[in-house]
């Protein structure tokens, strides 16, 4: 197995996000279940309300997924930050593999996890829409909505490599001599993602234009990961 695959395998196996500090307490499972059930009741209530009202704009329900790109950025950053928070950065950075390989492994693990999370959210959202449509008596439109949602997901998953790359770069900068630049870069990153959202949501882009933007975002992602690699190699603070 290649080094990259081994790093990805071990990173995927690791479930710990942030290690418990001594003296801290984790939420008991019973309460997690109670809060989960409460959230489910609230969502079901909202769905029932929407279904009774009968004026749901189903296309716009899918749009909320844009917000998930910010989540992807934050999660990617946290995957780097946890090495410092969990005091494993010394082990991670002294591995006999290039910084590029280490960060590429983090990048792919984030992407794999992100696609999985997106699939779960897509299914949950589809069930939500299905319920509302059934209440509104619009069962015949289900297939159209499912396809539209699928297209929407392909679009935003195509842009998630950029969001993940930006997240990794931001947190590498935070752990480097360039830390003062972090807030500025973070705000800039959020603005760029907002501009992307604005382009896809409001501008009437052709299929070719969308593909062009996605291709450019992938090229920029390569540059972003390379920059993060250079900073981690030359300017990281341990």
């Amino acid at each position, binding site marked *: 197995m290649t080094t990259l695959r*081994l790093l990805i395998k071990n990173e995927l196996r690791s479930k*710990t996000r942030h290690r*418990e500090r001594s003296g801290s307490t984790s939420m008991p499972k019973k309460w997690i279940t109670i809060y989960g059930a409460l959230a489910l009741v609230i969502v079901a209530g909202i769905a029932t309300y929407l279904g009774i009202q009968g004026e749901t704009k189903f296309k716009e329900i899918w749009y909320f997924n844009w917000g998930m790109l910010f989540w992807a950025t934050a999660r990617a950053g946290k995957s780097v930050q946890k090495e410092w928070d*969990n005091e494993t950065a010394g082990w991670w950075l*002294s591995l*006999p593999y290039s910084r590029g390989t280490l960060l590429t492994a983090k990048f792919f693990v984030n992407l794999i996890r992100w696609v999985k999370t997106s699939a779960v959210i897509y299914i949950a959202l589809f069930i939500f829409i299905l319920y509302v449509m059934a209440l509104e008596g619009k069962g015949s439109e289900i297939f159209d909505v499912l396809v539209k949602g699928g297209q929407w997901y392909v679009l935003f998953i195509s842009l998630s490599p950029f969001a993940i790359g930006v997240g990794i770069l931001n947190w590498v900068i935070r752990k480097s001599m360039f830390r003062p630049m972090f807030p500025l870069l973070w705000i800039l990153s959020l603005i760029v993602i907002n501009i992307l959202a604005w382009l896809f949501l409001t501008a009437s882009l052709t299929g070719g234009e969308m593909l062009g933007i996605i291709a450019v975002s992938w090229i920029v992602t390569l540059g972003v990961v390379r920059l993060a690699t250079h900073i981690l190699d030359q300017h*990281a603070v341990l």
Partner: protein
Amino acid sequence: MDVVVRCQDVKKTFGTRTALQDITVKIPSHQVVGILGPNGSGKSSLFRLILGLNQPDSGEISVLGRKPGWNNNHQIAYLPDRARWYGDHTVEGAFQWGMDLLPGFDASKANELADWMEIDKKMRVDGMSKGQEARLMLIMCLARNVPLIVLDEPFTGIDTPSRERIIDALIDRVTEREQTILISTHEIYEAEGLFDSVFFMNEGRVELSGPAEELRAKHGSMVELVGKMSHGGRGR
């Protein structure tokens, strides 16, 4: 004398703080070398340069005849200062991680050491005491067949029984004399007998160095010598 680490006028600063000031040293190979000195004297900074985790501002450094960096680290086992192990690993999981990612990691040696250090192999790291976790981290280093082992404060915050176990493991390793072991520590009293050579660091400089026996004959015990050095004396 074979040299494992060679530094020539190495300087390292972090912002306005100077960590290392024009260090020039030759660390001999196939020995246990103590890097001693008070907090902030530059011991960890020197180790990080040896591993290529940080780059010197000026000067030259070579480790096992090569420039430090990730592509030299397959030859080095490193226990970082203030490190923790991955909380969701079991001991067996940690050994699997070692086999996957650490060149020269010998799983059978690791199992032997775990038995000897009384570590339950099914135990999860986040359920371990600090001493048990420290022993596991030391095993991850000692079970590697590499020419250089770098241990940065391996005894910090560890209870006496665990410390004794660790020192016993090191003595056992030392008798095999296959490797060079660099150890920085404050626990000089217990670890003193381990060292063949010693480098005393203070304020980013190497103040004194030499074979441990010679230094003891000239200055008394290492504990006394560190005491003098920490209070500004040069001991020369």
